[in-house]
């Protein structure tokens, strides 16, 4: 599947006083009908998309579905298949931030309400980029709670992942054949010299924490001590081991030129630029989790030559083909996002209204060179990914077919499978 997305980040900054809303600053609330039309122009059916959580979830049991009703009904009518992103870097004001221990339960309620209201939706990214969200909110001090300690980081991380797991469970009760496409940042930390190997390896373990917890994958002893030393209880850790939903998931990973880092002997890090690239790092993630993969985010700003993003698109696509050709089941690719964004040059830490020219279209909705290139790439290559093996085709039910007999049967079979006690050991990836 080829996809793009409507950027919908909503963190707060200035200690909660300022709400960033990318749908607002990028003009989506005003131009959403036109944005959906652009998908047709590109030849795309899959769209990473989410209603704005902070204006939709008004309080416990209280929702304003007005915008979601309009947009999701339009998507259903136009046969657009959304990959629904329910939480993108922020929570409503009344909920506070990711340090709030009630956030997971509130979010579970919201996910269930959404799934009940839009039962034709099958694909979800319940919480987007949990690792990045916890890092920027609770370790770097940039967003939301603006924490800077390991304890605040672990608190945010465990709440984010628990919210994601509870949301998946809630959605599966409504839609047993739901598929969850994680969208997690894929990272790598390079040691600058031998003295930096130890801190680099600690970072290379931490990068897996969100997915380890999400998939019930046992962490190593160093990370176990780190988690428990920073506020996670044994009971909380075992919640994650006991709720493995990986059989419903696709390992979506995001890759940007900023995802690789240099580590100095004192543990400080800085950007390294692209060293290994998407294919090598994705193989590391796949080797750990052994799940189908999807490239769920990438982009590059257009620069003075005009072809910088075009060249990056080709490099990413070549990497996706490489991953596929070495035998990793690969189900999709995403250029993120549909339009230019704003203020990502400072990671949304300031509201400057500065255009970040990474879209397939600019903010006037004029196609960029990378958009034209993606349009052609989709047309030329769309038949290639599914031909890896017909047995690996993702069982997606298009919105227009969700009431058909075969779709109902699929859901019934999935519900039966859930009700049947699984041979638990057969699902384990670790052998004692």
């Amino acid at each position, binding site marked *: 599947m080829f996809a793009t997305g409507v950027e919908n980040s909503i963190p707060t900054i200035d200690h909660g006083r300022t709400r960033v809303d990318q749908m607002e600053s990028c003009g989506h609330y005003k131009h959403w009908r036109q944005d959906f039309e652009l998908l047709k122009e590109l030849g795309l059916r899959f769209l990473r998309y989410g209603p704005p959580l902070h204006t939709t979830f008004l309080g416990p049991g209280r929702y304003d579905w007005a915008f979601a009703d309009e947009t999701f009904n339009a998507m259903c009518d136009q046969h657009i298949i959304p990959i629904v992103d329910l939480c993108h870097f922020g929570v409503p004001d009344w909920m506070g931030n990711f340090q709030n221990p009630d956030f997971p339960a509130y979010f579970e309620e919201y996910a269930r309400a959404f799934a009940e209201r839009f039962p034709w939706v099958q694909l979800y990214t319940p919480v987007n980029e949990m690792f990045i969200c916890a890092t920027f909110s609770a370790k770097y001090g940039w967003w939301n709670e603006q924490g800077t300690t390991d304890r605040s980081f672990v608190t945010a991380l465990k709440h984010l992942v628990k919210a994601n797991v509870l949301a998946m469970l809630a959605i599966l009760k409504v839609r047993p054949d739901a598929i969850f496409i994680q969208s997690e940042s894929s990272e790598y930390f390079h040691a600058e010299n031998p003295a930096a190997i130890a801190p680099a390896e600690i970072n290379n373990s931490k990068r897996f924490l969100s997915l380890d917890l999400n998939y019930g994958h046992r962490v190593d002893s160093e990370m176990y001590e780190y988690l428990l030393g920073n506020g996670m209880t044994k009971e909380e850790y075992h919640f994650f081991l006991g709720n493995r939903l990986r059989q419903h998931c696709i390992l979506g990973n995001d890759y940007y030129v900023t995802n690789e880092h240099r580590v100095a002997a004192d543990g400080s890090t800085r950007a390294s630029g692209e060293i290994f690239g998407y294919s090598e790092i994705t193989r590391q993630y796949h080797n750990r989790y052994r799940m189908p993969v999807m490239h769920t985010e990438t982009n590059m*700003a*257009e*620069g*003075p*030559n*005009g*072809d910088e993003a*075009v*060249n990056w*698109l*080709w490099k990413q696509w070549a990497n996706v083909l490489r991953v596929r050709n070495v035998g990793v089941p690969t189900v999709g690719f995403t250029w993120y996002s549909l339009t*230019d964004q704003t203020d990502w*040059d400072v990671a949304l830490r300031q509201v400057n209204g*500065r*255009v970040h*020219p990474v879209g397939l279209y*600019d*903010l*006037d909705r*004029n196609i*960029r*060179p990378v958009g*034209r*290139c993606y349009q*052609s790439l989709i047309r030329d290559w769309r038949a290639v990914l599914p031909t890896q093996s017909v047995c690996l085709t993702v069982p997606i039910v298009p919105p227009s077919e969700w009431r058909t007999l075969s779709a109902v049967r699929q859901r019934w079979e999935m519900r039966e499978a859930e009700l049947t006690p699984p041979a638990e050991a057969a699902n384990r990836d670790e052998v004692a």
Partner: protein
Amino acid sequence: MVQVSYSDVYAICHDRDYEEHIQADDLVRTGANSHPHYRVIAVYGDKAWVRDVSNDLDGLTALSRCRKINGAPPG
């Protein structure tokens, strides 16, 4: 070594299709889209040294790709 561009794969041309005189200190775009914006620092032959006004990053580009902002519109 010549920098490889994949724009040629799909015949994407970045040059403007109208005449325009570009000189130092002009405010330009280097493509048909609305952003980014650059200040021309200097012109030499068919190349322009440009500076991104949003982040002060410098780059070299083909003069033929520069379009004056608020300059003569195409057509």
